[in-house]
């Protein structure tokens, strides 16, 4: 079993899920491997441990997440803290290989580097082998291309990065691989232009004018 873990707070609506769907189709499309981390950790221990056990007993775990303030979203940290304790308390001997895919709306995939390094350090500290970290820039544009096949030149770098995951799964290297960038081929200016247009459209839908977006609701003193 290779759980493809969607660790986005946006759950079903997330770019992380779009990326994972592409990856599942590329590697091994099995419905039972799909896992969306709940935003709130279940209070019932059994329910929580069922999720942790799925990750812990796997051969490979692939976690996709959005970059939130330069790192993992807080709920992913919470889940990883729980996983770490779970492994410690249960003296877990299984060691799934950890892969991570970070995406952000910014064009520079490089901005995801440290968040992936945190993943590598998590793996080391918890006795898990590291597989590969993939950094995806222009996440919003990727989501807009959900239906574009991986064979398309627009997703050339994505499929190269996914090849990296597939190779690492079949022939693991002792130290894992260096980060790969996996964004769609799209001009930076267009990514930012469409992003900005999206904010204006969203505001209009909510009955706001453009200038309302600049509101400063709280006092600075």
């Amino acid at each position, binding site marked *: 079993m290779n759980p493809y873990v969607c660790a*986005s*707070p*946006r759950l079903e609506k*997330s770019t992380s899920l779009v990326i994972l769907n592409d990856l599942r189709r590329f590697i091994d499309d099995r419905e039972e491997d799909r896992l969306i981390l709940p*935003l*709130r950790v279940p209070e019932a221990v059994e329910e929580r441990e069922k999720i942790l056990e799925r990750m812990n007993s796997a051969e490979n775990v692939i976690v996709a997440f*959005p970059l*939130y*303030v*330069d*790192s*993992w*979203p*807080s*709920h992913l*940290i*919470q889940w*990883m*803290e729980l996983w770490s304790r779970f492994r410690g308390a249960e003296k877990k001997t299984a060691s799934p290989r950890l892969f991570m895919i970070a995406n952000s709306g*910014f*064009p*520079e995939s*490089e*901005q995801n580097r*440290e*968040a992936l*390094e*945190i*993943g590598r*350090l*998590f793996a080391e*500290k918890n006795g898990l082998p590291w597989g590969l970290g993939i950094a995806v820039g222009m996440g919003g544009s990727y989501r807009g291309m959900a239906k574009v096949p991986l064979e398309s030149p627009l997703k050339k770098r994505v499929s190269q990065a996914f090849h990296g995951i597939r190779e690492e799964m079949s022939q693991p290297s002792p130290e894992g691989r260096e980060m790969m960038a996996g964004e769609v081929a799209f001009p*930076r200016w267009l990514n*930012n232009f469409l*992003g*900005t247009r999206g*904010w204006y459209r*969203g*505001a209009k839908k*909510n009955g*706001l004018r453009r200038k*309302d*977006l*600049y*509101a*400063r*609701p*709280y*006092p*600075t*003193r």
Partner: protein
Amino acid sequence: MLTLSTLSPNREDKMRQVLFHDTRDELGRALLEELKPWLEKSSRESACYDLNAEEIAPCWGCFSCWIKTPGQCIHRDKGELYLKEQIRSDRVLLLSPLTWGGFSAAAKVVLDRSIGTLLPFFERRKGETHHPPRYERRSELISLGYGENLTEREKDLFRKNSRNINDNIKREPEEGPCFILESTRDLDSLKKRLGGLS
């Protein structure tokens, strides 16, 4: 827990400082015990919040704080107060167990819930794309990561991560100060650097 020091005439030139802390273990509690009196003494006004006292909702990524209620989070919990405190303070100190080179979940949620201090648009800074700040006046963020037997890699990653956060949220100064605290002795350098004092 909230403690507000009183205003006094000789503190007028000092800063308003706010400390958010996730201090669940012995070292964390010892650091907090030393930090709190220093914070009160060195501030014109100060506030201190225990992030474990009350859980706040994680950011849902709904972007309401950008396009529905600009500047305000959709969650009406204590996170709203934390956001206001960050905006009205000169300096924000975030004390967290150093967690694989980053912040703990309890500390990170404070940062995630603060994206309303930014605008959704894009601008280029230092060769990278970032979001511009919503407010003209910006607080200084001091990242405080603590832990025992930390490796150089963990410390280095925490420094890089703190710098990135500072670059992204464009807090002042440009190089976001970051302190690694492995014992209460390490607080001396923090007090020296941040002064009593500003």
